[in-house]
């Protein structure tokens, strides 16, 4: 596609991998995508509320102590979520990298489940245990959902640490904590901080979790944007808040960009730890293993368990009836589809989203990996839509694209487009280290042997990247499948996606509909986690590192 065509042109002019001349068109594809999904909607929002903004009402409404407090607590919960995720995730990553203990594989395997599950499903699972909404519930779920980001990022970095360094330190009499502090920590510090910033970002802009798990007085900037735009219909106020959020997010993204990959030596991603793993020694290590391991496992199993319990409760007793009704057609806005039929819609959307995501992510990764200034711009630009307010994005999308030729208001492409925006940055972060690790000598060797541009590209670029591109494709699919936040603001005709149907079913007054929603949540959890486990076997650390 674009990448291939661009790369071919690049190969003719030749620069290392023949990607040189392709960088500009590749960057153009990416930036056009960001303009379409993020900048356009944001500009439309500002344009639409310009009268309200001129009147100064928004500032009057917002210039209160309350707004300051909302901003303050949003920062505080995001910082707390990030800090806790950083500590737990780093500990879990270290245990995984260095130690051998029962359940080691399980901890790693389940860690991604909370991240890929729709946030409404996670939150409903926690609520099912009788947990009332509160700040601590919100932070706990933010940590649970995002700890995998730290684990994978730090894990990848730890894998690249020469085990002999650690062995040398311990043989010189350092305790394992001492060796970690003096040898490994300095090497993984930046990676851990960068990952923590990503967690901060996700927690700062999280919507579904806050909506379901807040109790009295719990609110965030993101939720205020939703309330102002959706419930109070004060678009100007929402726009000011949304712009403020974009500024914060842009700042954090810039900071994260400086940290990410800074201390990763070229080719690090392909290094596997050569040192053997040992059983935990001493009470300290055992405590760390048990605490971090059980935290990660609980993060996945508590919400899932809640869902299962809730889905099995039938009236006063227990049973599988809600699972049976997954096959019944649901009438009304949900068209004529049965809940399981919604899997068809979700699959279709996610497949289209995957195509879009890969068409953007592959050229974007090439730019990020090879271009200096351009790479930095593209890398940061891709993060913006991910962290924009979902409500603002929804209304902005609606306002921006309601006239032909770009009438996307209720186009079947709208949902896949939005799903793709969430997947692209994840795929890019997966591909970039592999592109950086490509060996230029292969291209040179091919050239010496008289291979043409296309063949050189195939030998030196396409073949080594084949697997990771396949993995990225699956990752994009899984993320698209589970996306709920932004797509819930797009209108839909006929068939809803699975996460949308879960939200719809649980808003109906019938206990049966709620039970069915929970059963559907369990099925999504199983499917998504299963897909992800497959992906994980192939890629180890790759997915979810930032």
């Amino acid at each position, binding site marked *: 596609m674009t990448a291939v065509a661009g790369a071919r042109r690049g190969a003719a002019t030749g620069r290392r991998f023949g990607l040189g001349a392709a960088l500009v068109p590749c960057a153009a594809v990416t930036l056009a995508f960001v303009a379409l999904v993020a900048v356009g909607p944001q500009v439309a929002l500002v344009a639409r509320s310009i009268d309200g903004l001129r009147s100064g009402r928004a500032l009057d409404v917002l210039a209160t102590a309350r707004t300051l407090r909302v901003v303050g607590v949003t920062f505080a919960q995001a910082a707390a979520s990030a800090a806790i995720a950083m500590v737990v995730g780093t500990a879990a990553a270290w245990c995984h990298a260095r130690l051998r203990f029962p359940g080691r594989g399980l901890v790693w395997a389940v860690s991604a489940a909370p991240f890929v599950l729709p946030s409404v499903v996670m939150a409903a699972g926690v609520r099912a245990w009788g947990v009332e909404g509160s700040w601590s519930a919100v932070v706990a779920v933010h940590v649970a959902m995002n700890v995998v980001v730290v684990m994978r990022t730090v894990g990848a970095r730890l894998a690249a640490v020469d085990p002999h360094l650690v062995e040398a330190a311990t043989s010189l009499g350092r305790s394992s904590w001492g060796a970690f502090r003096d040898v490994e920590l300095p090497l993984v510090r930046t990676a851990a901080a960068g990952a923590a910033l990503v967690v901060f970002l996700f927690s700062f802009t999280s919507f579904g979790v806050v909506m379901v798990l807040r109790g009295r*007085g719990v609110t965030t900037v993101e939720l205020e944007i939703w309330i102002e735009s959706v419930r*109070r*219909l004060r678009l100007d106020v929402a726009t000011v808040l949304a712009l403020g959020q974009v500024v914060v997010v842009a700042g954090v993204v810039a900071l994260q960009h400086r940290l990410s990959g800074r201390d990763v030596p070229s080719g690090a991603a392909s290094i596997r730890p050569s040192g053997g793993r040992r059983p935990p020694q001493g009470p300290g290590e055992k405590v760390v293993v048990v605490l971090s391991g059980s935290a990660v496992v609980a993060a996945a199993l508590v919400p899932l368990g809640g869902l299962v319990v809730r889905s099995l409760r039938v009236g006063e007793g227990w049973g599988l009836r809600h699972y049976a009704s997954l096959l019944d057609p649901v009438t009304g*806005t949900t068209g004529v589809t049965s809940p399981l039929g919604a899997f068809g819609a979700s*699959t279709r959307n996610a497949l*289209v989203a995957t*195509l879009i995501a890969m068409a953007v992510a592959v050229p974007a990764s090439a730019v990020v990996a090879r271009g200096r200034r351009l790479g930095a711009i593209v890398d940061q630009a891709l993060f913006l839509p991910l962290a924009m307010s979902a409500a603002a994005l929804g209304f902005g999308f609606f306002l921006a694209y309601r006239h032909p030729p770009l009438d996307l208001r209720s186009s*079947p492409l709208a949902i896949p487009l939005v799903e793709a925006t969430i997947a692209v940055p994840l795929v890019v972060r997966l591909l970039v280290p592999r592109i950086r690790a490509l060996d230029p000598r292969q291209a040179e060797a091919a050239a010496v042997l008289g291979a043409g541009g296309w063949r050189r590209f195939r030998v030196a670029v396409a073949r080594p990247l084949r697997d990771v591109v396949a993995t990225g494709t699956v990752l994009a699919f899984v993320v698209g499948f589970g996306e709920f936040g932004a797509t819930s603001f797009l209108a839909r005709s006929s068939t809803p996606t699975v996460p949308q149907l879960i939200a719809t079913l649980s*808003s109906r007054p019938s206990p049966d509909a709620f039970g069915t929603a929970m059963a559907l949540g369990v099925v999504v959890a199983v499917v998504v986690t299963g897909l992800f486990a497959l992906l994980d076997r192939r890629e180890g650390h790759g997915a979810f590192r930032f």
Partner: protein
Amino acid sequence: MKRIAALVAVVLATTTLVACGSDDSPSGGASARAGKVVLVTYSGYELPKDAAKAFTEETGTKIEVLATDDAGAALGRAILAAGDPEGDLFFGVDTTFLTQATGSDAFERSTPAIRDLPEAVLDPSGTLVPIDESTVCVNVDRTWFEAKGVAPPTTFEDLVDPRYKGLLVTEDPATSSPGLVFLAATVQQMGDRAPDYWARLRDNGVEVAGGWSDAYFSSFTVNGGDRPLVVSYASSPPAEVMGSDAARATPKSTVMTSTCTRQVEFAGILRGAKNRKGAERLLAAMQSEDWQAALPASNYVFPVRPGVRLPEAFERFAVRPADPIQLDPEQVGRHRDEWLDRWRDVMG
């Protein structure tokens, strides 16, 4: 090579799926063909299946539903698109949003087809047409109070009585429709003293959930939670025993009639509708005897049409006071933001 083959297969399959998909997912209001009327609404709304089918058979017009997750979001989009609407007919403006809808230029004026409607359910501006009523009440888990040997509360004042401390869950009025109706009801009942009442609710341990389904399905004792009082609907008790395989034969819950507040849902023709005739026909159908009679089963609401036969569960278990608290849409529209701010100041 195998993997590449697999990728190619995925791409081909996708293209096919997309192609198939576009056959049955028409592109919304943008290209409205004759023979199709687009109903814009919120996603919790369920079209009464048989009545909708009968409409299509009689008129040859297909009903396409375009839904957004929240009723407020759906209305917000309709107002933003005023004059160039996404569809033809809008359903789902409730009493608390009424003046915002009628004050915009998104709707054409329509007159109710049902005669003898009580004034209490009409749109004073004469723009929108009432379709159904959903009375918001504090619901009581009868069985919980029986087991404890405590008399359930009966008045607003009881809810702030220390005897009932920590028993009530309501919804945040900023994010939830029944929560907002409850808030407006307290103002309607207590006037200027309402904020003081909210403070007493807070001191008496009220839980404020984000949305109705959290409050009702997670916190209410009937559904496994730990609060026996919840702000919900008059139709919630019959909902317990409805459906093909109801949980129980007799509802565990009932309502505190003194708190019951009328909430009406309206429909209106969108200005600039491409299929205006279809919109008129659908609006008329929604007021017809058959459609109105199907509403309790499909949406757990009461028809506005007088004399419509209700399902047995509604007849037996839906308690509706003869004179529920009546909100003034004008007053709610004018003071909504102010009340919300006060409520949030009080609740912290």
